[in-house]
């Protein structure tokens, strides 16, 4: 069984983002970029399926600027077999990404596509569900446990009130939640080996998809600032302030 793992290059989760002064977006120049944390979990899960003998090949795919190749190399160093890079310089929205991934899926014929539940830059949480819709496949979102059966997968999902378990027929889409696994670090020898693994490059046009955004971003602003608070000396002062000043208890 082939497993396809889409991975996104995003601002590193530890970076405090800065909004550009002209309000056109956030500052991306000279900022540390990394693989989206949820996608690391997807790659890890795919590799575990391979180690368990369930998956025969793991393909990492990324869409965007030339540097997305670094993100694919990271996935290859973790243990993915080969990469696909769809080169595009402009903004990509989840719908366009889902359409391109659909074309890749039709070409590669994986039985399972594992995506992160959301990217920490646009916080959209859409691509996996959209890809499932376009392919007419079942979806198991926010997965915290995956058990592969014959012709189906049993997936435990994180929902608001606790956990829910569903079975989904293969081929299927799974999106990962934080608790699915703990991603491994790539070792130096594996990073060296990953440099020899192949990455195919293509364009949105090769996949027959128009990547133009549907939404127009009018402006990006800083969120409202909180006023500076005060330090209290002890619990008695805290309770008194909450009762008499803030009047919240």
């Amino acid at each position: 069984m082939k497993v396809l793992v889409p991975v996104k290059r995003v601002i590193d989760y530890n970076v405090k983002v800065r909004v550009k002064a002209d309000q056109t977006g956030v500052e991306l120049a000279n900022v540390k970029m990394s693989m989206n944390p949820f996608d690391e979990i997807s790659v890890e899960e795919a590799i575990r399926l391979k180690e368990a003998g369930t998956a025969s090949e793991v393909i990492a795919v990324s869409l965007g600027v030339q540097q997305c190749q670094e993100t694919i190399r990271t996935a290859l160093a973790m243990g993915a077999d080969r990469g696909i890079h769809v080169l595009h310089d402009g903004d990509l929205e989840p719908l366009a990404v889902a359409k391109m991934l659909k074309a890749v899926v039709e070409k590669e014929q994986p039985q399972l596509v594992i995506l992160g539940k959301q990217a920490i830059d646009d916080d959209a949480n859409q691509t996996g569900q959209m890809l499932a819709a376009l392919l007419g496949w079942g979806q198991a979102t926010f997965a915290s446990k995956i058990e592969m059966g014959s012709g189906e997968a049993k997936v435990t999902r994180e929902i608001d009130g606790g956990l829910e378990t569903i079975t989904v027929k293969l081929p299927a889409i799974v999106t990962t939640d934080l608790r699915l696994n703990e991603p491994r670090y790539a070792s130096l020898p594996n990073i060296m080996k990953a440099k020899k693994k192949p990455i195919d490059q293509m364009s949105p046009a090769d996949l027959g998809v128009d990547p133009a955004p549907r939404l127009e971003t009018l402006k990006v602003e800083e969120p409202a600032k909180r006023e500076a608070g005060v330090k209290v000396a002890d619990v008695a002062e805290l309770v008194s302030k909450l009762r008499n000043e803030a009047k919240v208890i």
Partner: protein
Amino acid sequence: MSVLVVAEHDNSEIAPATLNAVTAASQIGGDVAVLVGGSGSAAAAEAAAKIAGVAKVLHADAAEYANGLAENVAPLVVALASGYSHVLAPATSYGKNVMPRVAALLDVQQISEISAVVDADTFVRPIYAGNAMATVKSSDAVKVITVRTTAFDAAAAEGGSAAVEAADAKGDAGLTSYVGAELSSSERPELTSAKIVISGGRGMQNGDNFKMLEEVADKLGAAVGASRAAVDAGFVPNDYQVGQTGKVVAPELYVAVGISGAIQHLAGMKDSKVIVAINKDEEAPIFQVADYGLVADLFEAVPELSKALDD
């Protein structure tokens, strides 16, 4: 202009998050209809009809909607969407699962977790874990939107008298089946709608120590939350998690105990009205957003706080 709100419900009651989505729908303007897709869900449809501001309830009752599986619910929403300019759902785990599937089937780009309505085409939404706010304009024929519930007041659950119309079911897609659920049982208010939330982090050291927070929570009528570190360490179940990857809360009072205040956590609580931080590390980033900060050992401060609330 007319707006369809996809209701989240358990077949007998409407989930509170739906009421916040109805308010967002009212701000867009036009008639507001609510879709209740369920099985044995007449009570939920009647409850939806009583929500203030709702003009019509569409009720599809069939076995395939019993558990809200996205593969079955999405075609139902899509079949009805052509009559509406906007389709909204609360940005809960249910809405986030179903709506992008609807959007892709309609070939439109969804707008996730809006926090404000500017006009019928223009919306504000947080990006980068709430560290930036984007104003976006959609030119899609139907706007598919999920609503950040803490950013909109709840519509009154009583006072409306909408007509309930039956909607045709679309059949079982046969792609997924429901096995079961394990829900956390709690006597306390639900985290996302609580007026007061008290959360613990890694500093709590173990799950037993959360009893200290529960004691304070019971005295305040508060919900108990947690940081990702506390959840990952197994102190509490994952549905306690407040943050970018957990729940977003905006209570009147948020008390962060033994929580450093990582970006990921702040994304889930920084819109709270008053924030209190109790932490022994005076350099902890949580103090930068706290209205009242107490630098103290939580194992002394929390029992003291509990006692002070008795007075």
